[in-house]
């Protein structure tokens, strides 16, 4: 799913001087997740539905509905991220390096595993965005 929609894929990555096992704990243990991300009822179990809860603000309940998609201990973790319109997918990849771990977070918009909203689209999203960018460039 990672390479299919480059225009709406956000990647944040960083070298961290900690082993993958330790980072994995911070990414998958509810108490620890809460310390750097949000209150949650996460479980590292594929298919588990959970939510992140931030402080509600105007026009937003602060709840992000999620579902675990991938659990590969110490290597890869993915969940859907149901906030702000059709869902996106958040994928964490941990790669061991000499000094620790290369941590990569990829958030891909417009892709939803449950996908009810836009299954049946007759063309790919990537193509659509590609066309759109071309046209918008032409307009400006």
């Amino acid at each position, binding site marked *: 799913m990672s390479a299919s929609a480059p*225009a*709406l894929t*956000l990647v*944040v990555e*960083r070298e*961290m001087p*900690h*082993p993958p096992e*330790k*980072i994995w*704990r*911070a990414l998958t243990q509810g108490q*620890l997740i809460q*310390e*750097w*991300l949000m209150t949650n009822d996460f479980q590292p179990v594929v298919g588990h539905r959970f939510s992140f809860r*931030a402080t509600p*603000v*105007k*026009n*937003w309940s*602060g709840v992000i509905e999620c579902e675990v998609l991938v659990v590969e201990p110490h290597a890869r973790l993915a969940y859907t991220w149901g*906030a*702000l*319109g*059709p869902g996106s997918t958040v994928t964490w990849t941990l790669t061991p390096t000499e000094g620790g771990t290369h*941590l990569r*977070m990829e*958030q891909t*918009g*417009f892709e939803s595993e449950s996908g009810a*909203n*836009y299954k*049946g*689209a*007759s063309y790919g999203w990537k193509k*659509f*965005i590609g*066309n*759109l*960018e071309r*046209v*918008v460039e032409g*307009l*400006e």
Partner: protein
Amino acid sequence: MTLANPNHVFRALSDPTRRAIFEELTRHGEQTVHALTRYAGVSQPAVSKHLTVLKRAKLVRHRRDGRETHYRAQADALAPMVDWLDRYGAFWRERFDKLEGLLNRMEP
């Protein structure tokens, strides 16, 4: 980052028919509701409804000319998507900082 504003553009484009109509407008320029109805292959009221949603999301704009209404794509239609990337980018970088802080405090 403020997560307060649900992205109308995402919603508007989550429907395949709306996406098709919008893509048609970006590809072939201004068109009448009649032409779009022929293109979309759904009823004119349905097309009008879709156009209303697209208009609300500021993806298209319209002008009246006699009895016909013409629609065209907005030039800055992609801006909200860029904004989405910017805002989530800032959000995750801040969270990465917090994660690093936590890792430094954690037992090995």
